Every structure is written in C-alpha cells, then in structure tokens.
C-alpha cells in the first residue's frame, strides 16, 4: 500500500487530515486498508469482537463526498476508530462481552458514537472488554481475554482492554472506552497509550450500557495527547438524551496544548506514594522530575481519605450494578434459558446461565449491601465516605492546579495471575477509583517502561471541567519526554 509508507497503524489524526487534503489517499482507501490490517492482526490480541466494514466504508464515502464538494468533513475526517462494545451501535451487534447479549443488535446509536461519526470518524468495529465493564484485566469476557500487544502472555488491563490494545497495536488510531473505576486509565497505562476519563457528565452516556450510574464515564484512547484532546472535543457536550450530561460549554482543548506549564502547581498526594517502593512508582517519580524541569512547582499534598476508597467504591459500584443488571432477565434483550417453566424460574435460570463469575459476584455484593438491615451500614455509609473523598480533592485543588500519581501499583500482569483472588484484583484499582468517586477529570499518559519493557502510565488529575489544564500538563510532559 504505497499511500501509507509507514503503514496505516502509525498514523495520527493530523497526518490523516493532511493526507486526505493533499489527496495522498481517500477516506475510502484508508478505511479499506485499515479494515484489512485490523482484521489480519486481530488474532494477536483479540481486541475486536465485531467488525463493521459496511458501516465504515459508508462513513468514509460520506467524508470523501464532503471533501470533493469542498465542505468541511469534520475534525476526525477519515480517522479509523474503534468503540468499546458497551456503547450501542445501531444495526451492529453490541455484546458487552456477555453471553447474554451475544446476539443483541441495538436499534439506536449512543450519542458518543453518533458524535464521532458526525465529526467524520470511521468506526471499524467494536472492542472486547470485561463483561459489562466489570474487571481490571479483560479476562472476564465471554469471548476470551484480550492479550497485551507488548507481551501476549500479559493482560491489557481492564475493563476497556480491547480499546487500549487496538490503539497500542495500531489497528485503530483512537478508540472509545468507558471508565467506572479506572477502566480507561489502567488499560491505557498497561498498553502504553493515552487514556482520558473526563469530568462526570462531560460526555453523554446515552447509549452507554449502564454499570454504576453515579460513576460511569465515556472517554477516549489515543496514541498522543493531541489526538485524545481532539477525540474528547468531538464527543463532549450537553445532550438532552442524558439528563446528567453537563451544560458547561466545551472549550477547544487543542488550544491548551501550548507547552506553557511554568509555575503550574502540581501536587503529589503522599498517600499514593506510600508503602514499599516499586518500579512503576520510581518511573512516575522520574517523570515528576521532568515536570520540575519544565518549571512546574511540585509539592506534597494529602488526600487523607484515600485508604477508604476501595471499600467505598466497591459498595457503591456493586449496589448500582445490581440494580442496573436487573434488566437482563430473558424478556427484552437477552437469550432465555430454555428449560424454564415459570416466569421466576426463567429469570433465575437465564441470569444464572448467562452471567459470568465476576458479574454474579458483583450482583450478589450489591444486592447484599442494599438488602434490608444492611443499607445504612454499607450503602449510606459509603455515600458519606464518598463525600469525604470528594472533599479531599476540592481542598487539594485549593492549593494545586493538578495532581500527579501512578496509575497502577504494577505494570501489566500475567493472564490468570489474579483471576482467582477477587479482592486482590479489586485492590489493583487503588489509584484510579478515587477520581471516579470525585467525578473529576483524570488521564493516563505514558511515562516510561520497566526493565522488562512493560509500559507505565502517569496519572494526571484536575478539578471539575478543567480537562484543558489536564491536557496542557500531559502534553507538555509528553513533548519533553519525546525530546529526551
């Protein structure tokens, strides 16, 4: 394919815009090449569950027509993207990586999906994930785990493992994921790409299959901070189909990528750097030195309620999940247990046969903490603790402009390593769940590799709706790191 000398896998959004306008290639040529490449490479990671070639080519044709007519084809014109299989796509199977929804074909598009296409993006397919986005390793998929492109024996992280892997692998230029407790940032760090969890309500969740409604976010993955900023700008904004979506106007995030971080106050929360030293943390601390060299004022801060975050999160998330997953009962969307004679038997058997082990565990936990006699002790208590965790951040942002932490205590682990110990798996979310609980924007930006070559991510957190500030810092860091 001469039009793509470096291969379709390495293109940036800007290169694609330049290539289309200089007629190096058409959107249809790029979409065909990208589909061919993605389908050929998919067995290496199992990142895609479904390809939608027809839809991709049709969007690409529209882009070419707009270009030919001299109309603006949109900021993401022709960009091959992937969408996590928990965002519904009209006419394209949406499984949530669950046996229950193996044949579910939604009758409408999620708002984030239609916004991407309106911006000209070409959706190649739907990506693998943990079942109903529940997991930290992508091993809870009914369609097999995703493998990390950096080491096929290791997990890509989860739950948006497929969306991270395809971007790292080059089988998509960017992708959409969802984040409830770290499901964008943790796989981004494990796969060495940029992943963004915007402010709660910044991106509409209409058409995002609900996991925990007070914590769910839609956000992008990309290979550069610039590309992530372009993606977020395209999908953000108020949507009357989602009452929780925010009214705040969407700024031009790319305008913030000016490298000007001199004097910016960056906080390092001591609770995130405690305990025995580990390689990931050392790499993040080195990145902090780069921030200092760029002129950032780095200081230690405290987020005192951090140690209660895991318990708080797993109470609230499972309680909400148990309610949200009640709808998969064999009536409306899902397959149905064959042998059920009565209605209640149908519910019980359909759900018993259909859900995987992790979903069952979370449904049970959530039902337990909401059940009579336990509500105050667990759910109400967790909501009060959540308020304290959120207050920690509000107070910290009185002192600093941004907060920097590790994304995960360790890099990508081996397949199967933590699968038998749910509590240990939950504890691996320790640095990412706090941002979701507070509803603030946060992201993972690659900051180095371990001695064995595994990527490590640095987390940047900012105050509500300050995605621009977060991108400014991450972009300045990315550029400085590239120049070293």
């Amino acid at each position, binding site marked *: 394919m001469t039009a793509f000398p470096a291969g379709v896998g390495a293109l940036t959004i800007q290169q694609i815009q330049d290539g289309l306008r200089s007629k190096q290639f058409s959107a249809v040529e790029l979409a065909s090449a990208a589909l061919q490449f993605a389908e050929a490479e998919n067995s290496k990671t199992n990142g895609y569950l479904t390809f939608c070639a027809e839809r991709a080519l049709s969007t690409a044709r529209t882009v070419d027509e707009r270009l030919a007519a001299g109309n603006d084809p949109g900021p993401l014109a022709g960009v091959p993207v992937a969408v996590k299989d928990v965002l519904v796509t009209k006419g394209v199977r949406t499984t949530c990586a669950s046996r229950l929804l193996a044949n579910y074909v939604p*009758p*409408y598009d999620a708002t984030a999906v239609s916004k991407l296409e309106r911006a000209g993006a070409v959706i190649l397919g739907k990506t693998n994930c943990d079942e109903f986005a529940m997991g930290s390793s992508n091993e809870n998929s009914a369609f097999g785990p995703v493998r990390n492109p950096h080491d096929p024996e290791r997990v890509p992280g989860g739950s948006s493992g497929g969306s991270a892997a395809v971007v790292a692998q080059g089988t998509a230029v960017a992708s959409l994921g969802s984040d409830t407790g770290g499901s964008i940032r943790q796989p981004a760090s494990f796969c060495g790409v940029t992943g963004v969890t915007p402010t709660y309500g910044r991106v509409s969740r209409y058409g995002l299959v609900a996991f925990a409604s007070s914590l769910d976010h839609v956000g992008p993955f990309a290979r550069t901070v610039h590309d992530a900023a372009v993606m977020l700008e395209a999908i953000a904004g108020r949507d*009357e189909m989602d009452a929780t979506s925010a*009214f705040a106007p969407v700024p031009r995030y790319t305008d913030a990528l000016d490298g000007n971080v001199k004097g910016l106050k960056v906080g390092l929360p001591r609770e995130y750097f405690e305990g025995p030293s580990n390689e990931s943390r050392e790499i993040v601390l080195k990145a902090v030195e780069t921030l200092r060299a760029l002129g950032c004022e780095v200081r230690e801060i405290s987020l005192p309620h951090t140690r209660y975050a895991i318990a708080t999160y797993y109470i609230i998330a499972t309680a909400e999940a*148990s309610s949200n997953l009640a709808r998969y009962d064999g009536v*409306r969307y899902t397959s149905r247990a064959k042998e059920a004679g009565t*209605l209640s038997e149908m519910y019980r058997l359909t*759900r*018993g046969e259909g859900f995987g082990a992790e979903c069952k565990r979370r449904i049970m936990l959530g039902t337990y903490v909401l059940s009579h006699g336990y509500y105050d002790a667990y759910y109400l208590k967790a909501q009060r603790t959540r308020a304290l965790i959120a207050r920690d951040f509000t107070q910290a942002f009185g002192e600093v402009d941004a907060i920097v932490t590790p994304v995960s205590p360790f890099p990508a682990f081996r397949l199967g390593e933590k699968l038998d110990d749910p509590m240990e798996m939950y504890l691996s979310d320790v640095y990412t769940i706090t941002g979701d609980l507070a509803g603030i924007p946060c992201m993972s930006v690659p900051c180095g590799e371990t001695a064995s070559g595994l990527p490590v991510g640095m987390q940047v957190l900012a105050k509500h709706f300050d995605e621009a500030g977060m991108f400014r810092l991450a972009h300045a860091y990315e550029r400085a790191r590239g120049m070293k």
Partner: protein
Amino acid sequence: MKITEKEVNYVAALANLALSGEETQRMARDLDEILGHMATLNELDTTGVEPMTQVLYEAGETATLREDEPRAVLGSQTAVANAPAAGSGYFKVPKVIER
C-alpha cells in the same frame, strides 16, 4: 462476620440468580473476604457528613426543561426485535399465574 451459604441463597433469591452448589460455596467465601475489607469504613466517623448521592454541577433550575413537542419513537416492532419471544409487538413470557 461470617457469610453462610444460607445467606448466599437468600441474597441470590433477591437477585433472581440461580447459583450451583459449587458457586454458592465459592460465593460465601468471596463475599466474606470482600465484606471483611468493606468493614474498614467502620473506623471512620461520618457523623454529620451529607451522603454524596449525585455528582451534579450548577445549572439553572429550568435548564433541563424543553418544549413539549412530539417526536419519533422507536415503535413496538423495533422495541421487541431483540426479544427471545415476541408477537404482535408484545414481549412473550411464560405463564405468571398458575390456575
């Protein structure tokens, strides 16, 4: 606190979830471990702290109101298209009441 299999069965019934004998045993163990960790919240005095029930931001009181205008809906045929059993635009289920 020790979660018994009896409690697991009670919660599974509330959740409409059929569990095998093996799953029930495993669930009792897992819930026990996880709920044990959740008990760390008891260390914390949260008296007087308002529970955070929503993550909401400032918007005018009438911001979410709109004109009441008719618009296209899915339609019952489309709505039941994914159902395992449907007919005449309705979902079909097994008998609810036995006579």
